[in-house]
């Protein structure tokens, strides 16, 4: 599934699958002043991320604005085999969201 913001990779090895995701997102805290206008840049940050495998949530995360911009995230789960799919999705505080799926290699 093409995704606007999530680069998702998953690799199975020795009965475990390692997931690596790079999410393009500004993760604005709402405390930063725009250098030109001097105005505070409004907050815009991912609040929830979830990853599922075979319809079951593998990981869910609640984030705040102090997760870095363009978050890189990695974790491992037991199981998974090459050719199977995983899905990841996120929702931010502005109501925006995105999701992606990837084939485990």
């Amino acid at each position: 599934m093409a995704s606007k913001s999530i680069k998702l990779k998953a690799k199975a090895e020795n009965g475990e699958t390692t997931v690596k995701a790079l999410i393009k997102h500004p993760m604005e805290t709402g405390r930063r002043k725009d250098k030109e206008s001097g105005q505070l840049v409004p907050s815009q940050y991912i609040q929830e991320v979830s990853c599922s495998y075979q319809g079951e949530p593998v990981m869910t995360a609640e984030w705040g604005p102090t997760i870095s911009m363009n978050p890189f995230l990695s974790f491992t789960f037991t199981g998974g085999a090459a050719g199977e799919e995983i899905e990841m999705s996120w929702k931010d505080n502005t109501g925006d969201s995105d999701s992606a799926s990837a084939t485990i290699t």
Partner: protein
Amino acid sequence: MNTNMKRRLFLKASVAAGTVGMAASAGLLMPRTVLAAWNEAAFKADTLAAALKEGLGSDALTESAEVLMEVPPNPENGAVVPVAVSTTLAGVQSIAILVEKNPSPLCGVFTLGKRMKPNVSIRVKVSESADIIAVVKAGDKLYSTRTPVKVTIGGCG
């Protein structure tokens, strides 16, 4: 309905600009969706103790050599500090990362599905040199480790 839920519903309803808040107060959302509401109180808490209590239910941490954290001690750029947390503890329910002197110390909480191994890598903002604290919830108890991190350029803008 327990106090936590009531408080979350109240907080959600009082965020007038939020669609979820308005829908919840209008009774339009199913309880299941409201239960998944983002923990605003935890992420807005401005002290470590409050962030722990709101986010993890307690600020009673037990330092443990079984919680391991890899983080560069002197990252130049506080905006992107890579943190890798792992643990040899069993029965891990969640892993949380906090930065003691950030305006809002709680960075994120990862809740483990039954297949997930208890390790996670993420990148966080560190606004000024401070301890990064990793908290692992296992068996309803909180185990932690902390590492001081010195930043040259503060990370919160």
